[in-house]
């Protein structure tokens, strides 16, 4: 698998970036409607990175983040992880809940549900784009939430990849929204399971065995 990832050519990476672009666009629209704010979205980055470098993408292994994790089922299974710095997660739920001040770092059960739902909406938007390009139906699992160090949270997807290689294909989009006196930032990761990448590339007609 590692070798296959390193052999991806420019056309294939472009195709994946385009899927990421449309997916992130859908996700940003959904998110923007949810929080009633304009969302700025970066052009998705598609990279093949050593597994141990992935936590650096979200501020380092020790950065405290909220992570919403979903498994993707269907012909091209994979994982989706939506990661926000802890402060951004608070700003987002407080905004959703109409809360003006936060007096504790604890999230209520309702806050946690809201964060999971945000992850769910973003993932659904992304998967729709992927399904549109590939004609493969992909279904997300229920969302799972954890708030902890980024390295620890990402370990769930990285260990799965580590079983077959030393590299991860990361389709990464950065979000931000101006919330008046604060800002929300987030990272969205789509990580196909080993084998799924071939299925996706085949489906969009850019697989080259030669």
């Amino acid at each position, binding site marked *: 698998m590692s070798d296959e990832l390193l052999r991806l050519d420019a056309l294939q990476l472009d195709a994946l970036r385009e899927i990421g672009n449309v997916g992130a666009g859908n996700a940003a629209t959904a998110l923007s409607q949810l929080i009633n704010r304009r969302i700025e979205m970066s052009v998705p980055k598609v990279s093949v990175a050593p597994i141990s470098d992935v936590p650096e993408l979200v501020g380092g292994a020790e950065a405290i983040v909220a992570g919403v994790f979903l498994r993707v089922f269907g012909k091209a299974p994979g994982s989706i992880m939506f990661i926000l710095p802890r402060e951004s997660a608070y700003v987002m739920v407080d905004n959703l809940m109409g809360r003006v001040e936060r007096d504790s770092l604890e999230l209520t059960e309702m806050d946690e549900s809201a964060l999971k739902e945000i992850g769910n909406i973003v993932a659904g938007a992304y998967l729709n784009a992927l399904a549109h390009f590939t004609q493969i139906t992909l279904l997300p699992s229920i969302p799972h939430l954890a708030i902890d160090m980024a390295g620890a949270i990402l*370990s769930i997807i990285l*260990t799965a990849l*580590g*079983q077959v290689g*030393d590299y991860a294909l990361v389709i990464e989009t950065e979000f931000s929204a101006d919330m008046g006196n604060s800002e929300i930032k987030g990272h969205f990761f789509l990580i196909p399971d080993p084998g799924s990448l071939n299925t996706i590339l085949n489906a969009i007609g850019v697989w080259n065995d030669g």
Partner: protein
Amino acid sequence: MADTIKVAMADLKVGRAPDTLISYGLGSCVGIAIYDSTTKIGGLAHIMLPNSTQSRAGENNAKFADTAIPILIKEVVRLGAIHSRLVAKIAGGSQMFNFSSSNDIMRIGERNAEAVRAILKKEGLRLIAEDVGGTYGRTVELILDTGVYKIKTIDKGCKNM
């Protein structure tokens, strides 16, 4: 001058006093610290998976418990530690997300810890302290001056063992 040597995921490093070996944000991974208190030489491995049997040649040996531990021992011995004096402390192996699924990858933390214990035993190392399991991340630090293995969490406190 004491250095802080960073050990990345799927990596291992060795050193001697007054240096410190540190690895950030372990989830299901296990941080294995081995130490010889006489020479104050030690090593830290950050493993991701229990065994390398499904792996192919050329892959990173520091990623798996079964291949990382023998290398870690060899490297500290090369620096001057004595095998029979080495003791081990381990931390990590948590389950970050709570799934009802019995899927193996979801239980990976537990399997990592089991594999590490078995391999340490096989290599003849005494496991003198462990802080494994739970649902939270850990940063681990091996202070080579004292052999203290320091475990930091975001809201479960900090402990020295």
